[in-house]
């Protein structure tokens, strides 16, 4: 597999942070950074990462299956992750999540047929004081309401 120069630079930085003989240490960040570019943890990516870190594919697979951000199938272009944990729930996180599902006509961990949007109900995002909160990919959106979410989706739908 070939990666972009930016991703190679990032992976290089992670590998360089590992002490000699400890390259396995790079596994979790490598998988996440590579997933961002590839879109999902594909069998080819597992093979590539295991080759680079001198691990068996199984050693990589067992790690992939543990971490909730690592996924086997690509998410939508705009992956909307809505927190419904206690602090967000108290201020409307659940209603926000339900609204997003209705608005996009999809359920939890599903994507729209055009692949533009996907939704995931997530656990605490670390935005408890500014809830309800969500992330679109890695971008935070605080103090959300169903109306703000509608505007955000409209904004993301615009071709750019």
């Amino acid at each position, binding site marked *: 597999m070939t990666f972009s120069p930016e991703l190679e630079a990032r992976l290089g930085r992670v590998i360089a*942070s590992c002490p000699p003989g400890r390259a396995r240490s790079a596994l*979790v960040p490598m998988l996440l950074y590579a997933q961002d570019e590839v879109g999902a943890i594909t069998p080819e990516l597992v093979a590539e990462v295991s080759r680079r870190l001198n691990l068996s594919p199984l050693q990589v697979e067992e790690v992939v299956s543990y*971490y909730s951000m690592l996924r086997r199938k690509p998410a939508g272009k705009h992956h909307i992750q809505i927190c419904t*944990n206690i602090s967000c729930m*108290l201020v409307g996180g659940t209603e926000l999540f339900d609204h997003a599902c209705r608005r996009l006509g999809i359920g939890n961990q599903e994507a729209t047929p055009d692949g533009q949007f996907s939704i995931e109900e997530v*656990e*605490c995002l670390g935005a408890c004081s500014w809830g309800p909160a969500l992330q679109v990919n890695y971008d935070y959106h605080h103090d959300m309401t169903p109306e703000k979410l509608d505007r955000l989706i409209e904004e993301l739908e615009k071709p750019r």
Partner: protein
Amino acid sequence: MLYNEPSPLEVKVLTRRFGLPNSASLDTYLATQGFEGFRKALAMTRDGIIDEVKKSNLRGRGGAGFPAGLKWGFVPRNSPKPKYVVANADEGEPGTCKDRLLMEFDPHSLIEGMLIAGLAVGAKAGYIYIRGEYRYLIELMDRAIDEARAGGWLGRNILGGGFDFDLYTHSGAGSYECGEESALLESLEGKRGVPRIRPPFPAVSGVFQCPTVLNNVETFCAVPAILRDGGAAFADLGTPKNGGTRLFCLSGHVNRPGVYELPMGFNLLRMINEVGGGVRGGRKLKAVIPGGSSCPVLKAEECDLPMDFDSLAKAGSMLGSGGVVVMDETTCMVKAAARIMRFYAHESCGFCTPCREGTAWLRKLLDRFHGGRGTPTDIALIGDLARSMLGRTFCPFGDAAAMPAISFVEKFRHEFEAHLNGRPCPFEPTGQLVEV
């Protein structure tokens, strides 16, 4: 831009640079006494540094409240192995959103705190383990580290003092359990985040089986001020065994939710009413989770107490990670308990049977209960099941899941009873049975 307005009641030690122009830059840091603590530490002995931290009565801000100086002192002196400093930036305890701000607005204070820790224990490298969702902070910390290295504050022979130290960020990829210290170390080594049995503790055998100082971001961020102004000055800000200030994260039903830096021992009711502007909509306070979702819930009448580790322990709860979740009279406590348990059932790593099975069954019981299909014997069953998890797991996760469940059932039994016999949840606006 800050996420919430500061409060005039705050005592700003760790957050003093929040809101300054380019507060995350090395220039701003250096212009505001940055690295002064490290300069002082460089002229001190290792024991001298650790003594200063001990004097400060700084206790771990991740949740357990273990004295930081004592922890540093456990790192063996004559071990031939390399030593490491690790910052736990896997902030994930529901209700907690403070480490994010420290890294965003003052990343160099984390760098300086870790540098001082490295000096104190003889480490040459450190890792900042940041949860994967905080990608912007990984990039921000990487830039700060590069800036500090270019400025000569990291790398070889820092300030000509013969001390080498370098720092690296390390991303998680979605796991609450990796905030537990031994699971974090496993993850840092490229494995599943399954906890290790202790002893040995990380101070003796941490990352790569080497002695490791592992603290929460906020703990490290307190260290520069402690070395700069002296441990005693920091200790004096708090209560006798709880030094300094801490960042409290007010969330839920308050008028002014936000992260506020307040002295240890600040009264909880005052925090809600004066710092947080009181309960939303003039409603009555029902309950507070005082330190993140793992902490037993307090009833409104139990909230007139000082927020320090010992007072909360005496009240049967914990100060935890500083996440203060405020619930007003309209909150259904069965629903709150069920949502919290859904989180634990989702995040249990599955290694220890009591935790894996216990959280899953508690989730089912509580969901069923909130759905109006609970039976009178379920109330006792929830408590019994949760109690059977206590102390029976490798890591504190099992207790962290069980303790809130026990507290919700014991303190709000009447609300559980109100859901019995197919009655609709009394707090749902529609008065309908809840679909689960």
